[in-house]
Protein backbone atom coordinates (compact mmCIF):
# COMPACT_ATOMS: atom_id res chain seq x y z
CA UNK A 1 0.00 0.00 0.00
CA UNK A 2 1.35 3.37 -0.90
CA UNK A 3 2.05 5.84 1.85
CA UNK A 4 -0.31 8.31 0.23
CA UNK A 5 -3.34 6.56 1.61
CA UNK A 6 -2.57 7.64 5.13
CA UNK A 7 -2.06 11.21 4.01
CA UNK A 8 -5.54 11.50 2.51
CA UNK A 9 -8.35 12.79 4.69
CA UNK A 10 -11.87 12.04 3.58
CA UNK A 11 -12.95 9.65 0.86
CA UNK A 12 -10.46 8.10 -1.55
CA UNK A 13 -12.76 8.89 -4.46
CA UNK A 14 -15.37 11.60 -4.58
CA UNK A 15 -17.82 12.46 -7.34
CA UNK A 16 -19.38 15.87 -6.76
CA UNK A 17 -22.48 16.56 -8.85
CA UNK A 18 -20.87 15.06 -11.93
CA UNK A 19 -22.65 15.23 -15.25
CA UNK A 20 -21.26 14.02 -18.55
CA UNK A 21 -22.82 14.82 -21.89
CA UNK A 22 -21.97 13.15 -25.19
CA UNK A 23 -23.38 15.80 -27.48
CA UNK A 24 -27.12 15.65 -26.87
CA UNK A 25 -26.94 12.33 -24.99
CA UNK A 26 -26.37 12.29 -21.27
CA UNK A 27 -23.90 9.70 -19.98
CA UNK A 28 -24.12 10.34 -16.25
CA UNK A 29 -26.50 12.79 -14.66
CA UNK A 30 -25.67 14.72 -11.49
CA UNK A 31 -23.84 11.89 -9.78
CA UNK A 32 -22.54 12.41 -6.27
CA UNK A 33 -20.96 9.46 -4.55
CA UNK A 34 -17.90 8.79 -2.42
CA UNK A 35 -15.81 5.64 -2.23
CA UNK A 36 -13.91 4.53 0.84
CA UNK A 37 -11.75 1.51 1.44
CA UNK A 38 -13.62 -1.74 0.97
CA UNK A 39 -15.32 -3.41 -1.95
CA UNK A 40 -17.98 -1.52 -3.84
CA UNK A 41 -20.02 -3.23 -6.52
CA UNK A 42 -21.14 -1.11 -9.46
CA UNK A 43 -24.30 -2.54 -10.95
CA UNK A 44 -26.75 -1.49 -13.59
CA UNK A 45 -28.22 -2.56 -16.92
CA UNK A 46 -26.54 -1.76 -20.24
CA UNK A 47 -26.57 1.98 -20.87
CA UNK A 48 -26.89 2.76 -17.17
CA UNK A 49 -23.71 4.85 -17.17
CA UNK A 50 -21.31 2.41 -15.48
CA UNK A 51 -18.69 2.62 -18.22
CA UNK A 52 -18.91 6.41 -18.34
CA UNK A 53 -18.51 6.53 -14.56
CA UNK A 54 -15.38 4.35 -14.77
CA UNK A 55 -13.94 6.38 -17.64
CA UNK A 56 -14.50 9.57 -15.69
CA UNK A 57 -12.85 8.06 -12.65
CA UNK A 58 -9.81 6.85 -14.59
CA UNK A 59 -9.41 10.26 -16.24
CA UNK A 60 -10.22 9.06 -19.75
CA UNK A 61 -13.16 11.45 -19.88
CA UNK A 62 -13.60 14.86 -18.29
CA UNK A 63 -16.89 15.76 -16.65
CA UNK A 64 -19.09 18.33 -18.39
CA UNK A 65 -20.17 19.57 -14.95
CA UNK A 66 -18.99 18.87 -11.41
CA UNK A 67 -15.70 17.41 -10.30
CA UNK A 68 -14.11 14.09 -9.45
CA UNK A 69 -11.29 13.78 -6.96
CA UNK A 70 -9.04 10.79 -6.39
CA UNK A 71 -7.04 11.02 -3.17
CA UNK A 72 -7.62 14.77 -3.30
CA UNK A 73 -6.40 15.20 -6.90
CA UNK A 74 -8.52 15.94 -9.98
CA UNK A 75 -9.23 12.57 -11.62
CA UNK A 76 -7.90 13.55 -15.06
CA UNK A 77 -4.50 14.63 -13.66
CA UNK A 78 -1.37 12.47 -13.88
CA UNK A 79 -1.03 12.72 -10.07
CA UNK A 80 -4.43 11.08 -9.60
CA UNK A 81 -3.47 8.23 -11.93
CA UNK A 82 -0.66 7.26 -9.55
CA UNK A 83 -3.36 6.25 -7.07
CA UNK A 84 -5.46 4.29 -9.55
CA UNK A 85 -5.08 0.73 -10.74
CA UNK A 86 -7.39 -0.08 -13.63
CA UNK A 87 -8.17 -3.49 -15.04
CA UNK A 88 -10.11 -2.79 -18.26
CA UNK A 89 -12.76 -5.04 -19.73
CA UNK A 90 -11.17 -5.08 -23.20
CA UNK A 91 -8.99 -8.12 -23.86
CA UNK A 92 -6.12 -6.14 -25.39
CA UNK A 93 -2.40 -6.38 -24.65
CA UNK A 94 0.99 -5.93 -26.24
CA UNK A 95 0.50 -9.41 -27.62
CA UNK A 96 4.13 -10.07 -28.49
CA UNK A 97 5.13 -9.81 -24.83
CA UNK A 98 5.00 -12.47 -22.15
CA UNK A 99 2.77 -11.85 -19.15
CA UNK A 100 5.81 -11.03 -17.02
CA UNK A 101 7.17 -8.57 -19.59
CA UNK A 102 3.78 -6.88 -19.83
CA UNK A 103 3.48 -6.37 -16.08
CA UNK A 104 7.09 -5.12 -15.98
CA UNK A 105 6.31 -2.69 -18.77
CA UNK A 106 3.38 -1.28 -16.85
CA UNK A 107 5.51 -1.03 -13.71
CA UNK A 108 8.14 0.92 -15.67
CA UNK A 109 5.46 3.24 -17.02
CA UNK A 110 4.78 4.08 -13.39
CA UNK A 111 8.37 5.30 -13.15
CA UNK A 112 9.71 2.58 -10.85
CA UNK A 113 13.41 1.82 -10.57
CA UNK A 114 14.71 -1.48 -11.98
CA UNK A 115 14.89 -3.15 -8.56
CA UNK A 116 11.38 -1.99 -7.70
CA UNK A 117 10.08 -3.19 -11.05
CA UNK A 118 11.45 -6.65 -10.39
CA UNK A 119 10.04 -6.90 -6.86
CA UNK A 120 6.65 -5.40 -7.58
CA UNK A 121 6.16 -7.48 -10.73
CA UNK A 122 6.82 -10.74 -8.90
CA UNK A 123 4.61 -9.62 -6.04
CA UNK A 124 1.72 -8.75 -8.38
CA UNK A 125 2.08 -11.99 -10.35
CA UNK A 126 2.14 -13.98 -7.14
CA UNK A 127 -1.01 -12.22 -5.94
CA UNK A 128 -2.94 -13.22 -9.04
CA UNK A 129 -1.47 -16.74 -9.01
CA UNK A 130 0.55 -16.38 -12.20
CA UNK A 131 4.15 -16.51 -10.96
CA UNK A 132 4.90 -19.84 -12.61
CA UNK A 133 2.97 -19.25 -15.85
CA UNK A 134 3.85 -15.65 -16.67
CA UNK A 135 6.63 -16.39 -19.16
CA UNK A 136 4.21 -17.58 -21.80
CA UNK A 137 3.57 -15.15 -24.67
CA UNK A 138 0.28 -13.33 -24.12
CA UNK A 139 -1.18 -14.35 -27.47
CA UNK A 140 -0.84 -17.97 -26.36
CA UNK A 141 -2.53 -17.47 -22.99
CA UNK A 142 -6.05 -18.56 -22.12
CA UNK A 143 -8.73 -15.97 -21.36
CA UNK A 144 -8.42 -16.65 -17.64
CA UNK A 145 -4.63 -16.20 -17.67
CA UNK A 146 -4.94 -12.98 -19.63
CA UNK A 147 -7.51 -11.71 -17.16
CA UNK A 148 -5.10 -12.41 -14.29
CA UNK A 149 -2.24 -10.65 -16.07
CA UNK A 150 -4.49 -7.66 -16.65
CA UNK A 151 -5.25 -7.63 -12.96
CA UNK A 152 -1.56 -7.94 -12.08
CA UNK A 153 -0.72 -4.82 -14.11
CA UNK A 154 -3.41 -2.94 -12.19
CA UNK A 155 -1.94 -4.04 -8.86
CA UNK A 156 1.74 -3.62 -9.65
CA UNK A 157 2.07 -0.07 -8.33
CA UNK A 158 0.03 -0.73 -5.16
CA UNK A 159 -2.82 1.64 -6.02
CA UNK A 160 -5.10 3.14 -3.39
CA UNK A 161 -8.08 2.69 -5.69
CA UNK A 162 -8.50 -0.47 -7.74
CA UNK A 163 -11.09 -0.36 -10.52
CA UNK A 164 -11.97 -3.64 -12.16
CA UNK A 165 -14.35 -3.98 -15.06
CA UNK A 166 -15.96 -7.42 -15.34
CA UNK A 167 -13.04 -9.15 -13.59
CA UNK A 168 -14.57 -12.61 -13.37
CA UNK A 169 -15.34 -13.05 -17.07
CA UNK A 170 -13.65 -16.13 -18.44
CA UNK A 171 -12.39 -17.30 -15.06
CA UNK A 172 -13.17 -20.83 -13.87
CA UNK A 173 -14.96 -21.34 -10.52
CA UNK A 174 -11.73 -22.03 -8.61
CA UNK A 175 -10.13 -18.95 -10.16
CA UNK A 176 -13.17 -16.87 -9.27
CA UNK A 177 -12.84 -17.87 -5.66
CA UNK A 178 -9.12 -16.95 -5.72
CA UNK A 179 -9.78 -13.56 -7.30
CA UNK A 180 -12.59 -12.83 -4.87
CA UNK A 181 -10.18 -13.60 -2.03
CA UNK A 182 -7.67 -11.27 -3.67
CA UNK A 183 -10.21 -8.43 -3.78
CA UNK A 184 -10.99 -9.05 -0.12
CA UNK A 185 -7.28 -8.86 0.71
CA UNK A 186 -6.99 -5.57 -1.18
CA UNK A 187 -9.98 -4.19 0.75
CA UNK A 188 -8.48 -5.43 4.03
CA UNK A 189 -5.29 -3.48 3.22
CA UNK A 190 -7.37 -0.31 3.01
CA UNK A 191 -7.73 -0.10 -0.76
CA UNK A 192 -10.99 1.03 -2.34
CA UNK A 193 -12.01 -1.67 -4.80
CA UNK A 194 -14.69 -0.77 -7.34
CA UNK A 195 -16.00 -3.76 -9.25
CA UNK A 196 -18.30 -3.39 -12.21
CA UNK A 197 -19.90 -6.74 -12.90
CA UNK A 198 -22.89 -8.41 -14.42
CA UNK A 199 -22.43 -11.50 -12.24
CA UNK A 200 -24.78 -10.46 -9.48
CA UNK A 201 -24.47 -13.66 -7.41
CA UNK A 202 -20.85 -12.96 -6.64
CA UNK A 203 -21.63 -9.45 -5.49
CA UNK A 204 -23.79 -10.94 -2.71
CA UNK A 205 -20.81 -12.28 -0.86
CA UNK A 206 -18.13 -9.96 -2.21
CA UNK A 207 -19.30 -6.36 -2.03
CA UNK A 208 -19.48 -4.36 1.18
CA UNK A 209 -21.48 -1.76 -0.65
CA UNK A 210 -23.42 -1.64 -3.88
CA UNK A 211 -23.92 1.30 -6.22
CA UNK A 212 -26.95 0.72 -8.44
CA UNK A 213 -27.02 2.82 -11.59
CA UNK A 214 -29.77 3.36 -14.11
CA UNK A 215 -30.29 5.88 -16.90
CA UNK A 216 -27.16 7.78 -15.95
CA UNK A 217 -28.17 8.27 -12.33
CA UNK A 218 -27.25 6.61 -9.09
CA UNK A 219 -30.42 4.85 -8.00
CA UNK A 220 -29.25 3.45 -4.68
CA UNK A 221 -26.06 3.22 -2.65
CA UNK A 222 -25.40 1.16 0.44
CA UNK A 223 -25.04 -2.36 1.75
CA UNK A 224 -27.51 -4.89 0.38
CA UNK A 225 -29.53 -5.09 3.62
CA UNK A 226 -29.70 -1.29 3.74
CA UNK A 227 -30.93 -1.06 0.18
CA UNK A 228 -33.36 -3.91 0.76
CA UNK A 229 -34.68 -2.06 3.80
CA UNK A 230 -35.56 0.87 1.53
CA UNK A 231 -38.14 -1.43 0.01
CA UNK A 232 -39.77 -2.38 3.30
CA UNK A 233 -43.22 -2.12 1.75
CA UNK A 234 -42.25 -4.80 -0.76
CA UNK A 235 -43.02 -8.33 0.59
CA UNK A 236 -39.94 -10.34 1.48
CA UNK A 237 -39.71 -13.87 0.11
CA UNK A 238 -38.78 -16.46 2.74
CA UNK A 239 -38.24 -20.20 2.41
CA UNK A 240 -38.70 -22.32 5.55
CA UNK A 241 -37.89 -26.03 5.77
CA UNK A 242 -39.97 -27.69 8.49
CA UNK A 243 -40.99 -31.30 9.08
CA UNK A 244 -44.43 -30.17 10.25
CA UNK A 245 -45.02 -28.29 7.02
CA UNK A 246 -48.84 -28.21 7.08
CA UNK A 247 -49.17 -27.53 10.80
CA UNK A 248 -46.83 -24.56 10.53
CA UNK A 249 -48.69 -23.26 7.47
CA UNK A 250 -51.96 -23.43 9.43
CA UNK A 251 -50.43 -21.33 12.20
CA UNK A 252 -48.90 -18.76 9.90
CA UNK A 253 -51.82 -18.23 7.59
CA UNK A 254 -53.65 -16.13 10.13
CA UNK A 255 -50.80 -13.74 10.72
CA UNK A 256 -51.23 -10.26 9.30
CA UNK A 257 -47.53 -10.15 8.32
CA UNK A 258 -47.92 -13.10 5.98
CA UNK A 259 -49.25 -12.07 2.60
CA UNK A 260 -48.96 -15.45 0.91
CA UNK A 261 -48.05 -19.06 1.70
CA UNK A 262 -47.10 -21.73 -0.78
CA UNK A 263 -46.29 -25.35 0.01
CA UNK A 264 -43.20 -26.62 -1.80
CA UNK A 265 -42.35 -30.30 -1.80
CA UNK A 266 -43.05 -32.24 1.37
CA UNK A 267 -41.35 -30.05 3.95
CA UNK A 268 -40.90 -26.55 2.59
CA UNK A 269 -42.96 -23.38 2.82
CA UNK A 270 -42.50 -20.35 0.59
CA UNK A 271 -43.77 -17.19 2.28
CA UNK A 272 -44.27 -13.60 1.28
CA UNK A 273 -43.89 -11.51 4.39
CA UNK A 274 -44.69 -7.86 5.07
CA UNK A 275 -42.74 -6.10 7.86
CA UNK A 276 -40.19 -8.93 8.16
CA UNK A 277 -38.69 -7.83 11.49
CA UNK A 278 -42.03 -8.23 13.27
CA UNK A 279 -42.56 -11.53 11.51
CA UNK A 280 -39.19 -12.95 12.57
CA UNK A 281 -39.77 -11.88 16.21
CA UNK A 282 -43.17 -13.58 16.32
CA UNK A 283 -41.88 -16.69 14.54
CA UNK A 284 -39.10 -17.01 17.13
CA UNK A 285 -41.68 -16.99 19.92
CA UNK A 286 -43.79 -19.56 18.08
CA UNK A 287 -40.85 -21.92 17.57
CA UNK A 288 -39.88 -21.70 21.26
CA UNK A 289 -43.44 -22.23 22.49
CA UNK A 290 -44.28 -25.08 20.14
CA UNK A 291 -42.30 -28.04 18.87
CA UNK A 292 -41.95 -27.02 15.22
CA UNK A 293 -38.75 -28.51 13.89
CA UNK A 294 -37.43 -25.81 11.54
CA UNK A 295 -34.25 -27.07 9.88
CA UNK A 296 -33.59 -24.22 7.45
CA UNK A 297 -34.77 -20.70 6.83
CA UNK A 298 -33.57 -18.22 4.22
CA UNK A 299 -34.67 -15.11 2.47
CA UNK A 300 -34.71 -15.75 -1.26
CA UNK A 301 -34.87 -12.14 -2.36
CA UNK A 302 -32.31 -10.42 -0.16
CA UNK A 303 -29.82 -11.26 -2.90
CA UNK A 304 -28.19 -8.67 -5.13
CA UNK A 305 -30.21 -9.88 -8.06
CA UNK A 306 -33.54 -9.55 -6.29
CA UNK A 307 -32.61 -6.16 -4.85
CA UNK A 308 -31.46 -5.10 -8.31
CA UNK A 309 -34.88 -6.00 -9.68
CA UNK A 310 -36.56 -3.96 -6.93
CA UNK A 311 -34.36 -0.97 -7.60
CA UNK A 312 -34.88 -1.13 -11.34
CA UNK A 313 -38.65 -1.54 -11.07
CA UNK A 314 -38.79 1.33 -8.59
CA UNK A 315 -36.70 3.48 -10.93
CA UNK A 316 -38.99 2.64 -13.84
CA UNK A 317 -41.93 4.17 -11.96
CA UNK A 318 -40.28 7.62 -11.99
Amino acid at each position, binding site marked *: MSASLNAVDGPLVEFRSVTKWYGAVIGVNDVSVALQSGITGLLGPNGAGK*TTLIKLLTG*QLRPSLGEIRVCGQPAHSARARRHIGYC*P*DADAFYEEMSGRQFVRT*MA*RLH*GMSSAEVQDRTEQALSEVGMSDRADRTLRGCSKGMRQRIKLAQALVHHPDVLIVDEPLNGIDPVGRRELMDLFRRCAARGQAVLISSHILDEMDELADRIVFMGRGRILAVGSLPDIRAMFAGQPLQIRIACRQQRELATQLIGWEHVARIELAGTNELLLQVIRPEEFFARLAVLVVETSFDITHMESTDATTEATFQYVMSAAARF
Partner: protein
Amino acid sequence: MNSLIPQFVASRHLFALTMRRQLLSRQTLACVALSALCALIVLAWSRHSDPTSKKLAEQVLVPTFVAFLMPIFAICYGASGIGGEREDQTLIYLLIAPLPRSLTYFVKGAASLSLVGGWTAGTLFVLCKLAGKPGDELFRLFLPAALLGALAYGCLFLLLGAVFRHGTIISLVYWFFLEVLFGNLPGIIKRVSVAFYVRCMVHDAAGDMNLGPPGRVAREMFLPVSGSTAMITLCTATICLLIAGMVLFDLREYRDAS
Protein backbone atom coordinates in the same frame (compact mmCIF):
# COMPACT_ATOMS: atom_id res chain seq x y z
CA MET B 1 10.52 17.44 -8.04
CA ASN B 2 9.41 14.13 -6.50
CA SER B 3 7.33 13.29 -9.54
CA LEU B 4 9.94 14.40 -12.10
CA ILE B 5 12.28 11.44 -11.66
CA PRO B 6 9.54 8.79 -12.06
CA GLN B 7 8.24 10.74 -15.06
CA PHE B 8 11.68 10.78 -16.61
CA VAL B 9 12.13 7.04 -16.00
CA ALA B 10 8.66 6.32 -17.41
CA SER B 11 9.27 8.57 -20.45
CA ARG B 12 12.59 6.85 -21.18
CA HIS B 13 10.89 3.48 -21.03
CA LEU B 14 7.99 4.65 -23.20
CA PHE B 15 10.49 5.91 -25.77
CA ALA B 16 12.31 2.57 -25.85
CA LEU B 17 9.03 0.63 -25.89
CA THR B 18 7.71 2.66 -28.83
CA MET B 19 10.96 2.30 -30.78
CA ARG B 20 11.08 -1.46 -30.21
CA ARG B 21 7.43 -2.08 -31.06
CA GLN B 22 7.57 0.13 -34.16
CA LEU B 23 10.77 -1.46 -35.41
CA LEU B 24 9.42 -4.97 -34.97
CA SER B 25 6.21 -4.24 -36.83
CA ARG B 26 4.63 -4.70 -40.26
CA GLN B 27 5.57 -1.10 -41.03
CA THR B 28 9.26 -2.02 -41.01
CA LEU B 29 8.62 -4.83 -43.50
CA ALA B 30 6.83 -2.35 -45.78
CA CYS B 31 9.72 0.13 -45.49
CA VAL B 32 12.32 -2.56 -46.22
CA ALA B 33 10.40 -3.82 -49.26
CA LEU B 34 9.86 -0.35 -50.75
CA SER B 35 13.45 0.73 -50.03
CA ALA B 36 14.71 -2.43 -51.75
CA LEU B 37 12.52 -1.62 -54.75
CA CYS B 38 13.96 1.89 -54.95
CA ALA B 39 17.47 0.48 -54.55
CA LEU B 40 16.84 -1.76 -57.57
CA ILE B 41 15.66 1.27 -59.55
CA VAL B 42 18.84 3.16 -58.60
CA LEU B 43 20.99 0.15 -59.53
CA ALA B 44 19.28 -0.08 -62.89
CA TRP B 45 19.71 3.68 -63.43
CA SER B 46 23.43 3.51 -62.54
CA ARG B 47 23.95 1.40 -65.69
CA HIS B 48 22.99 4.54 -67.65
CA SER B 49 25.56 5.47 -70.28
CA ASP B 50 26.01 9.02 -68.98
CA PRO B 51 25.12 9.15 -65.26
CA THR B 52 25.26 12.68 -63.89
CA SER B 53 24.18 14.15 -60.55
CA LYS B 54 21.51 16.29 -62.23
CA LYS B 55 19.96 13.28 -63.97
CA LEU B 56 20.11 11.20 -60.76
CA ALA B 57 18.31 13.94 -58.85
CA GLU B 58 15.65 14.63 -61.48
CA GLN B 59 15.07 11.10 -62.77
CA VAL B 60 15.42 9.09 -59.55
CA LEU B 61 15.79 10.86 -56.22
CA VAL B 62 13.04 13.48 -56.52
CA PRO B 63 10.34 11.17 -57.97
CA THR B 64 11.16 8.02 -56.00
CA PHE B 65 12.70 9.25 -52.78
CA VAL B 66 11.31 12.75 -52.11
CA ALA B 67 7.86 12.20 -53.58
CA PHE B 68 7.35 8.57 -52.57
CA LEU B 69 9.67 6.92 -50.03
CA MET B 70 10.01 9.81 -47.61
CA PRO B 71 6.24 10.28 -47.05
CA ILE B 72 5.78 6.52 -46.88
CA PHE B 73 8.32 6.28 -44.03
CA ALA B 74 6.50 9.09 -42.27
CA ILE B 75 3.10 7.42 -42.75
CA CYS B 76 4.43 4.04 -41.58
CA TYR B 77 5.92 5.26 -38.33
CA GLY B 78 4.15 8.59 -37.80
CA ALA B 79 0.54 7.53 -38.27
CA SER B 80 1.08 4.40 -36.19
CA GLY B 81 2.73 6.25 -33.29
CA ILE B 82 -0.58 6.86 -31.51
CA GLY B 83 -2.85 5.41 -34.22
CA GLY B 84 -1.29 1.95 -33.87
CA GLU B 85 -2.05 1.92 -30.15
CA ARG B 86 -5.65 2.87 -30.92
CA GLU B 87 -5.99 0.12 -33.51
CA ASP B 88 -4.49 -2.47 -31.14
CA GLN B 89 -6.71 -1.15 -28.30
CA THR B 90 -3.62 -0.73 -26.12
CA LEU B 91 -3.94 3.05 -25.90
CA ILE B 92 -5.79 2.56 -22.63
CA TYR B 93 -2.54 1.47 -20.93
CA LEU B 94 -0.91 4.76 -21.90
CA LEU B 95 -3.94 6.80 -20.88
CA ILE B 96 -3.95 5.32 -17.38
CA ALA B 97 -0.18 5.62 -16.88
CA PRO B 98 0.74 8.49 -14.55
CA LEU B 99 2.34 10.59 -17.28
CA PRO B 100 0.83 13.88 -18.44
CA ARG B 101 -0.86 13.15 -21.73
CA SER B 102 1.04 15.84 -23.59
CA LEU B 103 4.30 14.25 -22.41
CA THR B 104 3.10 10.83 -23.57
CA TYR B 105 2.40 12.30 -27.00
CA PHE B 106 5.76 14.05 -27.09
CA VAL B 107 7.69 10.90 -26.15
CA LYS B 108 5.79 8.71 -28.62
CA GLY B 109 6.32 11.40 -31.25
CA ALA B 110 10.04 11.62 -30.49
CA ALA B 111 10.41 7.86 -30.91
CA SER B 112 8.40 7.80 -34.13
CA LEU B 113 10.24 10.80 -35.58
CA SER B 114 13.59 9.22 -34.71
CA LEU B 115 12.62 6.21 -36.79
CA VAL B 116 11.31 8.36 -39.65
CA GLY B 117 14.52 10.44 -39.61
CA GLY B 118 16.71 7.34 -39.33
CA TRP B 119 15.02 5.56 -42.23
CA THR B 120 15.09 8.73 -44.35
CA ALA B 121 18.79 9.43 -43.79
CA GLY B 122 19.76 5.75 -44.01
CA THR B 123 17.85 5.04 -47.20
CA LEU B 124 19.07 8.24 -48.85
CA PHE B 125 22.64 7.26 -47.96
CA VAL B 126 22.23 3.75 -49.40
CA LEU B 127 20.57 5.00 -52.59
CA CYS B 128 23.29 7.61 -53.15
CA LYS B 129 26.02 5.03 -52.53
CA LEU B 130 24.41 2.62 -54.99
CA ALA B 131 24.30 5.39 -57.59
CA GLY B 132 28.10 5.76 -57.36
CA LYS B 133 29.95 9.06 -57.80
CA PRO B 134 26.89 11.22 -58.77
CA GLY B 135 25.21 10.07 -55.57
CA ASP B 136 28.04 11.12 -53.28
CA GLU B 137 27.52 14.76 -54.18
CA LEU B 138 23.72 14.60 -53.97
CA PHE B 139 23.62 13.01 -50.50
CA ARG B 140 25.03 16.19 -48.95
CA LEU B 141 22.57 18.37 -50.89
CA PHE B 142 19.47 16.28 -50.27
CA LEU B 143 20.02 15.35 -46.61
CA PRO B 144 18.89 18.58 -44.83
CA ALA B 145 15.79 18.94 -47.01
CA ALA B 146 14.93 15.26 -46.73
CA LEU B 147 15.29 15.26 -42.94
CA LEU B 148 13.23 18.42 -42.45
CA GLY B 149 10.58 17.16 -44.86
CA ALA B 150 10.46 13.76 -43.15
CA LEU B 151 10.04 15.37 -39.72
CA ALA B 152 7.27 17.66 -40.97
CA TYR B 153 5.50 14.70 -42.57
CA GLY B 154 6.07 12.64 -39.42
CA CYS B 155 4.50 15.29 -37.16
CA LEU B 156 1.55 15.69 -39.52
CA PHE B 157 0.81 11.96 -39.73
CA LEU B 158 1.36 11.52 -35.98
CA LEU B 159 -1.32 14.15 -35.45
CA LEU B 160 -3.70 12.51 -37.94
CA GLY B 161 -3.16 9.15 -36.21
CA ALA B 162 -3.98 10.68 -32.83
CA VAL B 163 -7.07 12.53 -34.01
CA PHE B 164 -8.70 10.06 -36.40
CA ARG B 165 -9.56 6.44 -35.71
CA HIS B 166 -8.12 5.14 -39.00
CA GLY B 167 -5.15 7.49 -39.08
CA THR B 168 -3.06 5.46 -41.52
CA ILE B 169 -5.78 5.42 -44.18
CA ILE B 170 -6.50 9.11 -43.71
CA SER B 171 -2.77 9.85 -43.93
CA LEU B 172 -2.55 7.92 -47.21
CA VAL B 173 -5.56 9.78 -48.59
CA TYR B 174 -4.05 13.11 -47.47
CA TRP B 175 -0.73 12.25 -49.03
CA PHE B 176 -2.29 11.26 -52.32
CA PHE B 177 -4.65 14.22 -52.69
CA LEU B 178 -2.79 17.08 -51.04
CA GLU B 179 0.80 16.10 -51.69
CA VAL B 180 0.68 14.23 -54.97
CA LEU B 181 -2.19 16.04 -56.74
CA PHE B 182 -2.17 19.53 -55.20
CA GLY B 183 1.62 19.49 -54.90
CA ASN B 184 1.90 19.27 -58.67
CA LEU B 185 -0.79 21.78 -59.57
CA PRO B 186 0.37 25.08 -61.06
CA GLY B 187 0.10 28.24 -58.99
CA ILE B 188 0.40 28.78 -55.27
CA ILE B 189 -2.01 26.03 -54.13
CA LYS B 190 0.96 23.68 -53.98
CA ARG B 191 2.31 25.72 -51.08
CA VAL B 192 0.11 23.72 -48.69
CA SER B 193 2.19 20.62 -49.45
CA VAL B 194 5.34 19.60 -47.62
CA ALA B 195 6.91 18.18 -50.79
CA PHE B 196 6.92 21.66 -52.39
CA TYR B 197 9.18 23.09 -49.67
CA VAL B 198 11.47 20.04 -49.77
CA ARG B 199 11.89 20.52 -53.50
CA CYS B 200 12.52 24.24 -53.05
CA MET B 201 15.27 23.47 -50.51
CA VAL B 202 16.84 20.89 -52.82
CA HIS B 203 16.68 23.21 -55.83
CA ASP B 204 18.22 26.01 -53.80
CA ALA B 205 21.01 23.80 -52.39
CA ALA B 206 21.80 22.41 -55.83
CA GLY B 207 21.73 25.81 -57.57
CA ASP B 208 24.75 24.97 -59.73
CA MET B 209 22.98 21.98 -61.23
CA ASN B 210 19.99 24.06 -62.28
CA LEU B 211 17.50 21.53 -60.91
CA GLY B 212 13.81 22.16 -61.33
CA PRO B 213 10.78 21.24 -63.37
CA PRO B 214 11.68 20.51 -67.01
CA GLY B 215 10.68 23.14 -69.55
CA ARG B 216 10.32 26.90 -69.37
CA VAL B 217 6.53 26.95 -68.73
CA ALA B 218 6.76 24.39 -65.95
CA ARG B 219 9.56 26.38 -64.32
CA GLU B 220 7.53 29.58 -64.46
CA MET B 221 4.48 27.85 -63.01
CA PHE B 222 6.47 26.29 -60.18
CA LEU B 223 6.79 29.64 -58.34
CA PRO B 224 9.46 28.46 -55.89
CA VAL B 225 10.34 30.07 -52.57
CA SER B 226 13.94 30.55 -51.45
CA GLY B 227 15.80 27.74 -49.65
CA SER B 228 15.88 29.61 -46.36
CA THR B 229 12.13 30.38 -46.55
CA ALA B 230 11.42 26.74 -47.28
CA MET B 231 13.60 25.66 -44.36
CA ILE B 232 11.90 28.09 -41.95
CA THR B 233 8.48 26.96 -43.19
CA LEU B 234 9.29 23.29 -42.65
CA CYS B 235 10.77 23.93 -39.18
CA THR B 236 7.76 26.06 -38.16
CA ALA B 237 5.32 23.47 -39.52
CA THR B 238 7.10 20.68 -37.61
CA ILE B 239 7.04 22.56 -34.30
CA CYS B 240 3.46 23.79 -34.73
CA LEU B 241 2.18 20.34 -35.67
CA LEU B 242 3.96 18.76 -32.69
CA ILE B 243 2.54 21.34 -30.26
CA ALA B 244 -0.94 21.07 -31.82
CA GLY B 245 -0.74 17.28 -31.40
CA MET B 246 0.29 17.58 -27.75
CA VAL B 247 -2.59 19.94 -26.99
CA LEU B 248 -5.17 17.88 -28.89
CA PHE B 249 -4.01 14.62 -27.33
CA ASP B 250 -4.24 16.21 -23.89
CA LEU B 251 -7.80 17.40 -24.47
CA ARG B 252 -9.16 14.57 -26.55
CA GLU B 253 -11.50 11.96 -25.08
CA TYR B 254 -10.87 8.51 -26.52
CA ARG B 255 -14.23 6.84 -26.09
CA ASP B 256 -13.08 3.80 -28.06
CA ALA B 257 -10.32 3.07 -25.51
CA SER B 258 -11.96 0.88 -22.87
